[in-house]
């Protein structure tokens, strides 16, 4: 490798990623949102000001903040004990539970709501169960989805999102040098105090990395509030504004406000929780690692994992049962069983091409994410380039932009005659979809990679460089293998979510031969009569595929992952 070029490496990476963001994030947003800042051809902030004058939009914003705070708190309350238990103790079924933890996240769109309704609906499984136990009166079923909606949304968000935080925490805990905790114990700091003073500060980067994603995710979450018909939150207000046939540009002002709020909330949480990062040098200086537990303790831990996992996969169970059922109404389990929906779904002429397309789009997008994610995380954590914090914040923003806004932006900028007309989705959506998918999933990889970089001392690389290893090679040979677990976690999330992407897929994949699997599910879902069964069947297929990928990855890499951290 040429030494001359390498010293410019970080600047080149910085410039390249900034340019990528400018072109494929800022530009499409401006294409769509521009209307909210223009009146009679002049720049105006009137729309933005109006958002803050308007009581229902203010209330929506406040509800969104509440939704995010409560969801993150509950998510932490679930994920932190799980991660600590899993890091510290051996218990029965540990490998299964650790492998299953990502499953709650793989809920295919559209059909996820079917599963939830089938369980929580007025004639749903839960009410039927409670009626059988004579806890409730069949004449007065509980309207689970219609009552205490904020509570329902928060619980649903937490059960859906805790894996993100859990994964980051487990990776962070694995990076904690046991010698640190042992030193604390030697000095008389034990129990909760040790956790608060030593462990928690050491895992803060991972906590922040996962927590901020959960926070922004629930701040902008659309599907769950829609499921509960909770319309006074910003995301739903934007969604209905965009779909309004009046075509008023005002909802785009709401998007802008939401974007800025996200940046502010991100900066705020970063200054509160993200600052203190303690890089550790040593990786393998002591015999740490999980300890065996007493049989009762082990059983209790396993039970805790089992209960959380069961609650989190209830919607999935709902979808799976729907896919196999003839009818399911007012009973605990479906009243008839069939395999027909699977042959209808998998034998449909949209299905096979859509599976091939999704695999292609999602794997390419994950690749782009890994390259960009490592590059951005490197610039942010390893260089002192001015403005790197902006790059860092920018990498989080895709979480805050409604998918529809970006999708319409991409559509506009790839029109014939425009700069990116060669990517026109009506001709071939491959490039623009891969870019769209990767931009929207980038935050996961950036956060996981950044957490890894922060926890791995730069002195290891410096030592390599002292011994004559060029910086790039030092990064590749020393740091990247050390943070492989973080990259793996981020990459898996990016891949799974790319496979399940909705907005870009619905708008940008216009020709049937280009449909990804989510659009095929949507098309089947819209069939009258059997649509929801057939769509569920295809959804089950998607869950199986992603489930096996994730289980396989953790089984295959499980030992290696462990080995990297504690030989």
């Amino acid at each position, binding site marked *: 490798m040429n030494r001359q070029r390498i010293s410019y490496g970080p600047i080149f990476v910085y410039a390249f990623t900034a340019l990528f963001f400018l072109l494929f994030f800022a530009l499409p947003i401006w294409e769509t949102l521009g209307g909210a800042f223009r*009146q009679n051809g002049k720049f105006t902030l009137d729309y933005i000001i109006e958002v803050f004058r308007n009581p229902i939009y203010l209330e929506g914003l406040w509800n969104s903040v509440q939704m995010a705070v409560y969801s993150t708190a509950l998510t932490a309350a679930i994920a932190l004990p799980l991660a600590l238990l899993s890091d510290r103790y051996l218990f029965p079924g540990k490998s299964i539970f650790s492998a299953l933890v990502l499953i709650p996240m793989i809920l295919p769109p559209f059909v996820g709501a079917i599963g939830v309704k*089938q369980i929580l609906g007025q004639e749903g499984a839960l009410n039927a169960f409670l009626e059988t136990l004579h806890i409730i009166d069949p*004449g007065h079923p509980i309207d689970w989805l219609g009552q205490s909606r904020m509570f329902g949304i928060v619980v649903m968000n937490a059960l859906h999102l805790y894996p993100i935080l859990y994964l980051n925490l487990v990776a962070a805990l694995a990076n904690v040098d046991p010698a640190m905790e042992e030193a604390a114990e030697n000095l008389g700091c034990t129990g909760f105090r040790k956790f608060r003073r030593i462990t928690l500060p050491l895992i803060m980067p991972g906590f922040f990395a996962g927590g901020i994603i959960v926070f922004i995710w629930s701040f902008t979450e659309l599907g769950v509030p829609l499921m509960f018909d909770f319309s006074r939150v910003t995301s739903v207000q934007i969604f209905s504004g965009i779909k*309004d046939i009046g075509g008023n540009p005002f909802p785009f002002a709401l998007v802008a406000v939401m974007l800025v709020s996200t940046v502010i909330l991100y900066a705020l949480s970063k200054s509160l929780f993200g600052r203190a990062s303690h890089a550790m040098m040593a990786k393998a200086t002591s015999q740490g690692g999980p300890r065996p537990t007493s049989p009762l303790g082990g059983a209790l831990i396993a039970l805790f994992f089992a209960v959380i996992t069961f609650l989190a996969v209830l919607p999935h169970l709902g979808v799976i049962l729907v896919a196999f059922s003839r009818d399911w109404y007012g009973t605990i389990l479906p009243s008839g069983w069939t395999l027909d929906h699977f042959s209808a779904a998998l034998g449909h002429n949209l299905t096979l091409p859509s599976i091939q397309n999704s695999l292609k789009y999602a794997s390419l997008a994950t690749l782009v994410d890994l390259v960009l994610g490592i590059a951005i995380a490197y610039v942010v954590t390893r260089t002192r380039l001015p403005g790197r914090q902006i790059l860092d914040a920018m990498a989080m923003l895709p979480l805050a932009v409604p998918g529809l806004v970006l999708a319409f932006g991409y559509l506009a900028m790839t029109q014939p005659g425009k700069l990116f007309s060669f990517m026109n989705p009506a001709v071939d959506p491959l490039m623009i979809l891969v870019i769209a998918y990767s931009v929207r999933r980038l935050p996961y990889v950036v956060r996981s990679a950044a957490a890894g970089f922060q926890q791995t001392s730069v002195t290891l690389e410096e030592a390599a460089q002292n011994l004559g290893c060029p910086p790039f090679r030092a990064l590749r040979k020393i740091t990247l293998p050390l943070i492989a677990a973080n990259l793996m976690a981020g990459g898996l999330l990016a891949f799974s979510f790319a496979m399940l992407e909705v907005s870009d897929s619905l708008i940008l994949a216009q*020709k049937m031969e280009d449909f990804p699997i989510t659009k095929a599910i949507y098309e089947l879902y819209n069939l*009258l009569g059997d649509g929801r069964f057939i769509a569920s069947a295809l959804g089950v*297929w998607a869950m199986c595929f992603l489930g096996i990928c994730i289980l396989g990855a953790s089984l295959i890499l499980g030992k290696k992952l462990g080995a990297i951290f504690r030989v």
Partner: protein
Amino acid sequence: MRILAVLAALALVLALPFVLKPKENLLARADDELVIISPHNEAIRYEFSRAFGDYYKAKTGRTVRLDWRIVGGTSEIARYLQGEYFNAFQREWTSQGNAWTKEVSTEFFNPASTSPAREAFLKSNAGIGIDLFFGGGAFDFINQSKLGTLVDSGVIQAHPDWFTDAIIPQSVSGEPFYDPKGRWIGTCLSSFGICYNSDSLRRLGVTELPSSWNDLTNPKFAHQVALADPTKSGSIAKAFEMVIQQQMQEAVGTGEATPEALAEGWKRGMQLLLKASANSRYFSDAAGKVPMDVSLGDAAIGMCIDFYGRFQSEAVKIGDEPSRLQYFTPVGGSSVGVDPIGLLRGAPNPEVAREFIAFVLSLEGQKLWNFKIGTPGGPTKYALRRLPIRKDIYTPEYTAYRSDPETMPYEEARSFTYHEEWTGALFSALRFIMRVSCIDSHDEQIAAWHALIEAGFPPEATATFTDVSAIDYVTTKDVIRPALKGSTPLTEVQLAARLGEQFRAQYRKAQQLAKEGK
């Protein structure tokens, strides 16, 4: 070993769709191509692709492939067309050496404009690579015709014998069925009605079966009504207009349509909608959500499109028992509208496009809409359950083949006449009113309604709740409509905020009064 097991499972999952792959491939390349943008579902696309392919092959000896462009529902399609035509014309205009000024960019798409840019657009062949727009409501097609994105397909001139009162009338009960200028033609019929779950009715103690829109206001249905969202679809907004028109018609009776009678009817219609909204769980923009939720018991009663209701009713039927989901069209409360097709400006394959329009309107094409699977000329995979536009399909010779032999939309349409002059001009205003008084104020409205129910509808509180003077007929015509017409997007939002706040205050007051028992 573990790795092998994982790989084997992965291979199995990946192999399944290959094993079950369908034999025929409708996506394969062909001699000719036709590009269609459509909100129609996969069932309709499949049956028309297959049947038109066979017809085209028989007629021309060439194969044809239908390239359906699916960008979402009608609101997404409208946005898509607008964006694409904007670019197409910009390219055309600048390629002729003209400057693309701000004025040109706003004027060429303005139906009221007489500027050179507008004229150039209407004369141009600026295209977006798509031939046809197929499906949606007449509302969307009238809009696109006004904008100038649709052009005359020439099918009316080519088949004058079809466009008579005996086959495809120009309008029925005041609703247009095709554009006399040929830019769009209805292909099938639809109307809005009510679906309800008979189990839920029993549970809620509703003994009398619903029969009119008024039943949606029954307090026993509190939080059990599913409504469609009039702000997100022209056809749903139309259905709301019909609810009001029915009340106006009843107020007018057999007498003369005096301004007082019309105002009284409007007021009753508004109060009806307010109460139905107060009963409702949500306003849905997804056409299938309402009948689905009602059939699952997640709502007891709802407003839905006829064919969705009929289809879902049959789908949840078990054996010979009457289905738990029932659908009806309120007599005299709904007009029959059309789902049109139209040729887009600058279509790349105009000949094939004309052939397709003619096929959809021919007897062969019309059979697909309602014939049962496997009947002569009927669909092969999906029963579409839509109602064909051609009257000659409703003759006794086809009764045995039809999925819905009892449904006679042309008879139903007689019980209702749409009076364009009463509310036609208030179409946008009505959507706006529904948004501020019901959708934006839904939480407060529901809270007040529940308080009213609990208190047994005390008079003062009830009067406050149902006070629609801010949106009465005269105010809507003389204040709201002109305000909306002359408004910028910003002033419209401000007007919505002001009126919405007024309604929310009114609902809060009604809630307070109800709690005080007044």
